[in-house]
């Protein structure tokens, strides 16, 4: 079921959100789902979902070298999962800020590493703009993402969920 959620996120990211771009940038739904899963289920789930999301993104969404998304998103999923114990359990804004930070960091890392691997590297200004825009957009969509992920996780619990 989580795979279906990722596929849906990838399709929406490529088919729907190009026409809903914010300042010319679209949200990174795969990164968003990974961050939400990691925030809810821990680093193991974050790393596993992140690797799948990264691979899907590499094959479907981006033209960057395959494996770059796997590297960035799986590491981010694990890092977000590891930071989960440090969040106040009753805080509403903390998960949102965590998603925002993960989105900014993931987009920036993708841009920087992509720039190192390919000749047509994006400028630093573009990387900063994209990171801020994606962070903002993902933060706006994170309440909806939390709701969907919670329902999917409750119905189909992930193996390894809850690992600290």
């Amino acid at each position, binding site marked *: 079921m989580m795979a279906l959620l990722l596929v849906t996120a990838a399709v929406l990211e*490529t*088919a729907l959100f190009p026409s809903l771009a914010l300042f010319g940038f679209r949200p990174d739904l795969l990164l968003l789902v990974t961050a939400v899963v990691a925030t809810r289920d821990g680093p*193991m789930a974050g790393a596993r979902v992140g690797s799948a999301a990264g691979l899907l993104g590499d094959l*479907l969404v981006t033209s960057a070298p*395959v*494996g770059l998304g796997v590297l960035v998103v799986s*590491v981010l999923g694990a890092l977000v*999962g590891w930071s989960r114990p440090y969040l106040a359990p009753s805080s509403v804004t903390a998960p949102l800020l965590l998603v925002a930070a993960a989105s900014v960091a993931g987009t920036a890392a993708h841009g920087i590493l992509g720039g190192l691997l390919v000749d047509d590297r994006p400028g630093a200004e573009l990387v900063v703009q994209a990171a801020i825009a994606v962070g903002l957009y993902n933060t706006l969509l994170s309440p909806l993402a939390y709701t969907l992920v919670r329902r999917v996780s409750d119905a189909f619990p992930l193996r390894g969920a809850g*690992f*600290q």
Partner: protein
Amino acid sequence: MFQRRRVRILLALLVAAAIALVTIDFRGGDEGILDRARGGVTAVFRPVQDGVVTLVRPFSNLGRSVSELLAIRAENERLRERVAELEERRRAVSDLERENAEFRTLLDIADRTELDVAAARVVALAPSNFEWTVTIDVGADEGIERGMPVIDGDGLVGRVIQVTPGASRVLLAIDPSFSAAARSAGDGEVGILDGRGGDPMVLRLLDPLADLAVGDQVVTSSYQGGVFPAGIPIGTVAAVGEGGSALAPEVQVNPFVDFTRLHHVLVVFSTGVDDIPPFEGSDDLEFERPPVSPRLDDDADDDVDDEGSDEETSDGEDAGGPDATGANALGAPRPRP
């Protein structure tokens, strides 16, 4: 602790796998296995993507239309303000162009007629509905005098009837109390032109048998010592009334000048036509008194005998000067201006 270690091992494996994928992708190039995998995934997802795009396109178009509508409204507002600004500027330019054309016309007529003129601006219209006068911004300080003709680029405007140091009042040619000698520009038929207020001016011809046609142009005449320089355009014949053997036809004349749009005029420093000097006294007229009088009656012979020799008759003052009866030595009446 064991679980945390499992996560680290998994992460390490994922990082290693990612680096391996990147390496394989780079080494494989455009025909590598990962590139083919990317093509396959794209081919699988393409129908789904197309379906989603088709599904959401109306909504995305709606959103785009709303944003475009807002942008168009803002653009429309900006363009309206721009149009208003340009319209105001165009009106100012049009007014300047009209004024420029008026000045050019005035300069042209001043150059063409070689009249000594003073330019003036119309500053006020007549306060009454029963008189057609305007006030101009030149007066006695500029040398303006009563009776001076006033013209503009189209023709005769009127004449000065009141002068103050800094302004003058001009009786327009359409005022019922206005009268001027005029003639047909075509055949020279002369008459007296009267104003009729809002109606066309009326030209009363002196010759009952004069034949004027609609469209003939009427100009000022110096006939009988008229106060205006000859040849100033007045208007065109609009209608010719019934005449007869003794009754001169009444000719209606539409003025050239638009008296409702007088802005700038010229005051002509001339009030009439100078007396024509006697022919004998003219410097450029070759006149040689005949040795004998053309009169053949006896009295004339006696006069010749009385005056004596040819040398005596060559004295212009005696021979050519007007006598008490107004006739010259040729017996012809002296021409009057």
